[in-house]
């Protein structure tokens, strides 16, 4: 099987109003198909949680959407907005730049510094502009990374397990913060996570990847704040755990 490189498959970047379209997208590592002809449409403003076991291809899919997989064999068509930001699992702050300079790195516009200060305040870190990243806690670093993503007013926010390295309490605070900011700025969000509860707490739509294909895809029409003992959530949770091959009695 020979597959053309990604440059043939194209990464068109003019989708209207933040929607995401994938048509028969395939990605393979040394011939092993991690993504197998995935077709998908995500409407503008959806908050999609992308679940899957380790190695199910969720990060591969996210990196394909972010345009970070030039080296990977693959084909298919991907349409994503030009204005997109990526939130990584690690904050990826430059240790030699101040917090404010990290946020405004490469930022155009009339007053990047002012926009950066506002973004920093919106993640609750006003006054820390001149701190070094090394002086912040892990949760604070991730909040700066969130500010760096959102100050660019993305139509699409791609997040690859952004809270995976944080402790449970900090993670809950980050969930509330992310939900508030997304509610205000209304980007389309694709959040890769291995945490079923995180997906159920945040998403308006849940996608499950398995064996390179979409194993489950459903909408969560529940208002916020959601309570984990809501019977509908309990039902969704059960459904996801079964799709992911986890039985609770085990």
């Amino acid at each position, binding site marked *: 099987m020979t597959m053309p490189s990604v440059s043939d498959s194209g990464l068109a970047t003019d989708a209207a109003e933040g929607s995401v379209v994938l048509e028969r997208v395939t990605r393979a590592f040394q011939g092993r198909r991690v993504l197998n002809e995935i077709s998908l449409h995500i409407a503008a403003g959806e908050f999609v949680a992308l679940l899957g076991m380790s190695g199910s291809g969720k990060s591969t899919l996210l990196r394909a959407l972010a*345009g970070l997989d030039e080296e990977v064999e693959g084909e298919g068509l991907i349409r994503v907005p030009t204005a997109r930001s990526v939130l990584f699992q690690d904050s990826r702050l430059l240790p030699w730049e101040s917090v404010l300079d990290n946020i405004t790195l*490469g930022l155009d516009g009339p007053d990047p510094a002012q926009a950066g200060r506002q973004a920093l305040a919106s993640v609750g870190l006003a006054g820390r502009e001149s701190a070094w990243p090394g002086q912040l806690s892990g949760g604070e670093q991730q909040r700066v990374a969130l500010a760096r993503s959102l100050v660019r007013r993305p139509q699409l926010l791609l997040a690859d397990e952004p809270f995976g390295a944080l402790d449970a309490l900090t993670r809950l605070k980050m969930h509330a913060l992310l939900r508030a900011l997304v509610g205000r700025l209304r980007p389309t969000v694709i959040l890769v996570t291995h945490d079923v509860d995180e997906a159920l707490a945040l998403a308006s739509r849940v996608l499950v990847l398995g064996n390179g294909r979409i194993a489950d895809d459903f909408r969560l029409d529940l208002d916020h704040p959601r309570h984990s003992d809501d019977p509908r959530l309990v039902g969704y949770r059960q459904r996801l755990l079964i799709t992911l091959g986890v039985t609770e009695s085990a």
Partner: protein
Amino acid sequence: MSAEGSTLGGRITSSTPRTAQASSRPGGTRLVPRRLTPLGRLLGPLVLLALWELAAQTGLLSPKLLAAPSTALITGYDMLANGTLLPHWLASAWRAWWGLGIGVAAAVLLALASGLTRIGEASIDSLVQIKRAIPTLALIPLAILWLGIGETMKIALIAGSVFVPVYINTHAAIKGIDIRHVELARTLGLGKAVFIRRIVLPGALPGFFTGLRLSVTSCWASLVVLEQINTTQGIGYLMNRARDYGQTEIIVVGLVIYMVLGLASDAAVRAIERSTLRYRKVIGS
């Protein structure tokens, strides 16, 4: 028999307090030595100096082989006071710093070219590795044929020896740029110029400083040999002439000057390094 009994008894009493040890910082045996004070660091050199002076004073060490530290100190002070030392020092410093400046500038430019472009890597890096294997002083005969016996040749050779550590360390640091930062730059849509200025250069700075610290001390080292060639000024010239006249105290003065220059240059670079890289909370410095 009775003596043995008393020893045994002594052992028992001495071991009883171990059961209840009251301390604000309970802890076990210290496994690593405590950190030295700056003065403690000087113990070795001071002991050596004392032994050296003692050997010279008692006649164990002939002044024909090595002058006493006190003699060298007096000689050095006299040369400084009567103005004979300064022109030699200035001549050496002029050569060393020109060589350092040219060598470091060339090293940084070539390290950037070979670290950031494929054509640069292909054409530059192997050549530098070959140059690295050839001792700088082995190039003196060729350098004399090409550049003559004047200052140009001396500065070129110093630049050549300074070039290697700066290039090697800067190049390694550029090649070692965190791939995650490269990905970040791509997702932020940074242009090549901004990427180099905000990510590559700051990321390569620690490596550059490592190379620079090696270079600022080594730029003086070649002078001893180079200042034998067609010159009447310089610390190296002074030391070689002193050898002809058997003036070991002047040789010691020359060595001390090199030492002071080396330590001072190193301290200066470290101070610049500390203020430039102040974002790093490095343990032990």
